[in-house]
């Protein structure tokens, strides 16, 4: 049934060749799906969706509505050889960015033009001369890639402030495998242990044995609260809200609790504006009274314009070429680039420098002429606010439509997560989170209507 799909013709379908034949790595999976048949597959899909709802596996767009994460349970398969390149490329990039941030705040960086850095919203001058614990700025790193269909992956952007989604990687695999274990037949899926890597990272950043670590959430009504709750339980650390924390007379961070308040050594923060949530936290942090994960200041490299110089950071700090390519991007402060972009609006992507969650991303070929013209006018008036990127024709995957019982093609990207501990060791978690676009769209962010699917790295 899967090979009957009308979308088999897309040239960059990861599962099927243009002639409809199944790609070798997917043969076992397709056989398993065909063996189950549509009615059974629909029933299993329902089981998986039911389990997701039971466990409150949610990403809330509106706190008044209970919304489970839309998930397609057919996994994406990444051959081990392809993953090896991705993994090395991600680790390389993380290390280079961390070195750059150290120079930016504690030394003198020579890679990115100063006017770019100083115009960056997330560059934080309060941090100048501040060295974070163990010289690690980037503890948790998320990177968005697209597959070009030939085993080559291209980077779209970096996520360095509070990258989210690792729970969705784990939970979608857990629920999918639980409901439809037949799909794994014939595959050797590479395992990973997020809990051990995070706990090792937390411990390595603190001076004392058995540090007290907490996860700071915005609230139980926040969009990613499921992830906050899940990770705090998985790591065995206390979940706190801003109102739970305060700065004590000794300058340290304390948490209010039944039976007596307690001192906090490390905050795994999942909020952006720390001072709003915990007044005085910046001072405590600068006095080395608490460790923050991620460190303050990492957002400087979240900037879409700084992204252009990451390959140079890799060359400069590691003395080697970048393993992974990144999308060709244009600095619009240059008149020549601006001119080029204005002449090629119908083939480029425009991004605001500080955008996230799919906001501020304009895929110009998909917009009407009037909208493009208005954006062009903004670009002329405020070129420093945007960057432009080539529009990539990246890969599609198949998603199952429960109601029709048919498979359809959708664009997919891949967010890969990595952690760096206090010894500078980087762990990249195999598989990542595959994000799936809506029909007739290339935007994959969950907050913009996208869904996700499990990703397995297979030997």
């Amino acid at each position: 049934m899967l090979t009957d799909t009308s979308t088999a013709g897309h040239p960059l379908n990861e599962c099927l060749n243009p002639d409809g034949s199944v790609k070798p790595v997917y043969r076992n999976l397709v056989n398993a799906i065909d063996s189950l048949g549509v009615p059974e597959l629909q029933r299993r899909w329902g089981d998986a969706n039911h389990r997701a709802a039971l466990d409150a596996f949610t990403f809330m767009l509106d706190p008044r509505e209970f919304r489970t994460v839309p998930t397609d349970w057919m996994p994406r398969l990444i051959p081990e050889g392809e993953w090896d390149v991705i993994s090395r490329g991600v680790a390389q990039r993380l290390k280079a960015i961390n070195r750059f941030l150290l120079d930016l705040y504690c030394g003198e960086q020579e890679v990115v033009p100063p006017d770019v850095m100083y115009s960056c919203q997330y560059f934080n001058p309060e941090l100048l001369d501040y060295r974070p614990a163990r010289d690690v700025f980037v503890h948790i790193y998320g990177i968005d890639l697209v597959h070009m269909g030939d085993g080559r992956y291209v980077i779209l952007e970096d996520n360095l402030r509070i990258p989210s989604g690792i729970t969705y990687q784990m939970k979608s695999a857990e629920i999918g495998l639980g409901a439809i274990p037949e799909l794994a037949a014939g595959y050797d899926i590479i395992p990973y242990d997020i809990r051990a890597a995070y706990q090792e990272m937390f411990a390595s950043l603190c001076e004392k044995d058995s540090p007290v670590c907490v996860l700071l959430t915005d609230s139980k009504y926040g969009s990613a609260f499921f992830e906050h709750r899940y990770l705090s339980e998985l790591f065995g650390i206390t979940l706190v809200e801003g109102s739970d924390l305060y700065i004590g007379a000794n300058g340290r961070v304390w948490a209010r609790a039944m039976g007596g308040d307690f001192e906090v050594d490390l905050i795994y923060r999942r909020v952006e504006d720390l001072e709003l949530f915990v007044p005085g936290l910046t001072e405590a942090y600068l006095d080395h009274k608490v460790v923050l994960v991620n460190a303050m200041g990492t957002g400087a490299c979240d900037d879409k314009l700084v992204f252009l110089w990451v390959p140079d950071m890799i060359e400069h700090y590691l003395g080697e070429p970048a393993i992974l390519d990144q999308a060709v991007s244009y600095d619009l402060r240059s008149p020549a680039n601006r001119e080029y972009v204005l002449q090629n609006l119908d083939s480029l992507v425009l991004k605001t420098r500080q955008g996230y969650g799919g906001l501020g991303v304009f895929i110009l070929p998909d917009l009407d002429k009037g909208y493009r013209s208005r954006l062009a006018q903004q670009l002329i008036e405020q070129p420093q606010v945007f960057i432009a990127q080539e529009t990539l024709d990246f890969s599609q995957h198949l998603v199952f439509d429960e109601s029709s019982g048919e498979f359809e093609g959708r664009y997919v990207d891949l967010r890969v997560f990595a952690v760096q501990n206090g010894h500078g060791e980087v762990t990249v978690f195999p598989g990542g989170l595959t994000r799936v676009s809506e029909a007739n769209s290339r935007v994959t962010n969950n907050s913009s209507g996208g869904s996700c699917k499990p990703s397995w790295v297979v030997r």
Partner: protein
Amino acid sequence: MVEPRSISVSSDRWLTDSRVYSLIWLGRWLERADNIARVINTFARIAVESGADMLTLQQSLGNAAAIRGIRVEDAGQSLEMLLRYHEASSIYHSLHTARSNATHVGTVELIRAISETVMTLERDGAMPASPLEALLLTNEILERLDAVYKVIDDSWFHQEALSEEEVYRRFVQQ
């Protein structure tokens, strides 16, 4: 005697102020859902036993709704409002909010038990068309709420509660 322990799944974690707040509201919203379900259940039982029709049940429930501060323009909608649609005083809304609080302070099993109860009101054809259907539906809701209370009792006083850590460990072992 069994020693009470923290509702948090791990004994080395603290019951912070915000979790206490969620715990209080978890209890309040569950109590509210239980209370409304019992009111409907009682009126539905009387209607069934006396052979009253749906309109009579709806009108009776209109008075119960008024006690809860719900103004029902159409007396024929009292049951729907109390079961599902009123934003502060329906069983559905109360359970939905209780579940939000449970995600902050409860175990996976508690979240699942409340979700099961919510789902009784979400399935197709959940809205009763007769006093007997109203009776059966609220019987089921009350049974599911009993299961919720049992999970709370178990996780608070007795057996080791199922945590996400344990779910993950079992998954990895597979």
